[in-house]
Structure formats: C-alpha cells, structure tokens
C-alpha cells in the first residue's frame, strides 16, 4: 500500500514541483545530478533550503587540532575563517579571485544572493564555460563549493550532509520498527501465535527470506551467526533505497561513500571469518602449477579488495543511474519547452511523466533487487571465506572461482 501511495504521489509532486521551477525563470533548468549529489542542506522544494551544521577538524597554523562547529554553511562563511572553493578548476580560480573581496564586503549577514552575484562575475570572466556554469550550477552558492580554512589546513570535514541525515532517518526508522517488533515478539505475538498485522507479517517474511534463502544456503552451518549482520545490511539498504524513492527525499545509497562503508563492513566481516583454507587459497592456491602461482596470487589478493569495491560501486551506480534517468525524464518537459516553446513543454512533460512512472516502478524493483544482490553477494563471500576444504582440490576449484569473477 505504501508503494502504491508512493507511485500515486510521484507524478503529482512532479507536476507540483514543476511550478517553482517555472516560476524561477525560463533559463533555469532541472539539474538532475545536483538533486542526487550530496550536499550540506535539506531541500524540501517549495520551502527554502535548510542548511545543515558544518563541523571541521582543522589543524591551525600553530599545528594544533581544533574542532570548528557552525550552525550552517552561511555562518561558517560569515565567520570569515573559511574560503569557498569550487572543485571545478575554472570555478576555483574564480573563487580565489573573489575570495578577498568576499571577505571584505560581507561581514555579518552573508546571503546566497551575493555569492550568486560573485559567480555571475566569474561567468563573465570565463566566457568559454559560462554556459556550462549556468547549466550545471545556475544556483552556485557556498553550499556547492568546498570550505577551506584560511588559517591552517582542513584535516577532515565532519559536516553533516543530507545523505547522512537520511542515513540517520533510515537508522531511526529501523530501530523504531525492529525494536518495536522485537517487543511484540517478546510479548508472545509471533512466538506463541502466528504473527499478526501486515507490518509484522511482511517484516517476518523478509527476515525469514534473508535467513533461509540468503544466509543459510550461501554460508552453511555457521549461517545463524551472520544473520544479524546480513539483516541489518539488508534492511538498511532496502529502506534507504525505498525512502529515496519518496518525494522530497534523497537516496543515501546513491553515495559512493555510504555504499563504500557498507562494503567495508562486508569486507571486514569476510576477512574476520576467513579460515586457514581461505587464506591458503589466496596466497598458495593449491592444485596449480608453480609457475602460474606468481600470476594468480596477486590476482587473488587483489580480488579481496575488488569484491567489496564492486559491491559498493554496483549499489551506488544503480541507485544513482536510476534517479538520474528518472529526473532526466521529468526534465524532458523543460528541455522541450526551451527548444519548441510551451506546446513542446506540455508534450514533453506528459510523455516524461509517463516514462518516469514506468522507470519509477522499475526503481521499486531495483530497490529490492540491489538490496538483495548486496546482501546475497556478502553472504556468498562470507560463505567462501568460511569454507573448509577437504584436500582434493582438483574438482572443486572451479566452483571456488565463481565469486572471484564478481
């Protein structure tokens, strides 16, 4: 039912969302990448952006580590201790140029408009990529740039990003949901009787699916030890993917850092459960002529790192690509409007919304599929690491190689 609600709501929000864009002016385009990328703000479109706290760990010129906290990016810039640098080479040069006068004529109240004006100058200065800047970052503000301390160097930028906020939302949802469910089970519903209600039934179906179809067949006898990890991974990815499909939200799994951390967890779990046979297979593959070993061992060794890397990239790329396609289709109306006028805009919007609905439904499938794939492959790798071989390797080696390809 939730899914149906999402699907029903999406085209509406797409249409509703069109109005502020249209109001903003004809030259403004829908920037899909900007909507997917991480940022230091929350964007619930009709209401203004909510800036998130910025936290910097810096080493100042005296060599002392210092934690700098600001309520928002605006305040951080206003403090005058930070320069805004845009990662694009041309823009960063422009930002450098304007850094000085920015500091000079903006003291307390630093607003978005002044920065945008600065960028306007930058575009004038760099005429050859003026168009690109207007397309990619028509709304360039310190939020799109990188803050670098004037005094000392940035060690780690601990700023809260919107993807992190949604990770927390997912985590809070999971804790609320599953601790609540656990209380239900403790009361006896589902333990002594059949589970009651749609929520408990559906969650139990997913939990038993992960345990019986993913963990047990792939890991084997010790599967139940890994079930909590796999369940957390599964529900985290699934909920993050699905929440990302809701209007006004962002997909935290469409972020290479977050999927990377998830993959690192899998990596650590796999290496921690590796048996002697597992390491033996990597550093001294049995049943293979000596002269092949120098070639194979580095490949096997690299495979340890490639597997989680691919895991992270797959999830990230799937979620990113899906949302890019979705947003590009929704932007079809604007594109056609700028090319063919209002009529083209209407035609493009109606076709785009229909296509987007189709892609949206596929995205619901992909949300489940990618969570499944991630957890499934994690279980497969754990199972491969746990495997104890009997020492006639000739025939079962081919079977071992399958996860290797991944």
């Amino acid at each position, binding site marked *: 039912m939730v899914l149906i609600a999402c699907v029903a709501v999406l085209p509406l929000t797409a249409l509703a969302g069109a109005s502020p864009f249209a109001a903003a002016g004809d030259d403004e385009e829908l920037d899909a990448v900007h909507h997917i990328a991480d940022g230091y703000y929350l964007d619930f479109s009709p209401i203004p952006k909510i800036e998130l706290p910025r936290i910097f760990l810096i080493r100042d010129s005296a060599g002392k580590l210092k934690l700098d906290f600001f309520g928002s990016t605006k305040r951080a810039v206003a403090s005058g201790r930070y320069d805004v640098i845009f990662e694009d080479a041309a823009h960063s040069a422009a930002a450098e140029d304007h850094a000085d006068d920015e500091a000079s004529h903006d003291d307390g109240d630093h607003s978005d408009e002044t920065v945008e004006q600065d960028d306007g100058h930058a575009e004038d200065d760099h005429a050859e990529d003026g168009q690109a800047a207007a397309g990619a970052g028509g709304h360039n503000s310190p939020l799109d740039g990188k803050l670098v301390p004037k005094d000392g160097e940035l060690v780690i930028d601990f700023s809260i990003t919107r993807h992190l906020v949604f990770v927390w939302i997912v985590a809070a949802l999971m804790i609320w949901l599953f601790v609540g469910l656990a209380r239900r089970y403790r009361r006896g519903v589902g333990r002594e009787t059949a589970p009651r209600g749609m929520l408990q039934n559906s969650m139990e179906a997913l939990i038993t699916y992960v345990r019986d179809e993913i963990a047990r067949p792939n890991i084997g006898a010790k599967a139940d030890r890994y079930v909590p990890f796999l369940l957390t991974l599964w529900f985290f990815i699934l909920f993050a993917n699905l929440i990302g499909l809701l209007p006004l939200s962002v997909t935290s799994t469409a972020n290479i850092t977050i999927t990377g951390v998830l993959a690192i967890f899998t990596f650590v779990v796999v290496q921690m459960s590796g048996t002697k046979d597992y390491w033996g297979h990597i550093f001294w593959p049995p049943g293979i002529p000596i002269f092949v070993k120098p070639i194979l061992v580095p490949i096997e060794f690299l495979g340890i790192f490639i597997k989680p890397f691919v895991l992270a*990239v797959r999830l990230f790329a799937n979620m990113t690509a899906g949302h890019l396609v979705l947003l590009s289709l929704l932007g079809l109306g604007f594109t056609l409007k700028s090319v063919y006028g209002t009529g083209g805009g209407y035609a493009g919007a109606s076709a785009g919304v229909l296509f987007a609905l189709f892609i949206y439904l596929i995205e619901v499938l992909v949300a489940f599929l990618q969570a499944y794939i991630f957890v499934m492959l994690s279980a497969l790798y754990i199972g491969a690491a746990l495997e104890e071989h009997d020492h006639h390797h000739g025939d079962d080696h081919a079977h071992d190689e399958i996860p290797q390809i991944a």
Partner: protein
Amino acid sequence: MDPTAMAWLGAGIGAGLAVLGAGIGIGRLAGPAMEGTARQPEAGGDIRTSMIIAAALIEGAAFFGLIICFFLQGKGA
C-alpha cells in the same frame, strides 16, 4: 576539436557501448534461462535466482564503463 566536446563525445559513445554490452550480456543470459525454465518449470526458482545474480554482475561491469563516462562528462562540464 575542442577537448570539452571530445570528452562529451567520448562520454556519450562510451555510455552507449557500455549499455550495449550489458544489453547483449543480459540478453544472452535471459534467453537460455527462460528456455531452461520452460523445459524444467520446477527448476524455475533456482534458475531465476542465479539469473538475477548473474545479471547484477553483468550490470556491475557495465556500470564501471558508465562511471568512466561520468568522469568524462565531468571533465567536459
């Protein structure tokens, strides 16, 4: 030719090729899987599971290509 244009061109062609490869791969995978399921409907569940896993692996490879294209697009922008 302008390097930016080259980068965009490369990104476009590369994305097309990556999708082409993935499409061929998944097509080659799905056809026999369907055939197998038709011949042995009772093995359908197993076939579907391994098909999905293999499709995801192929897709993963294609995404590597797409990410390179993304980099190129970034170079262009």
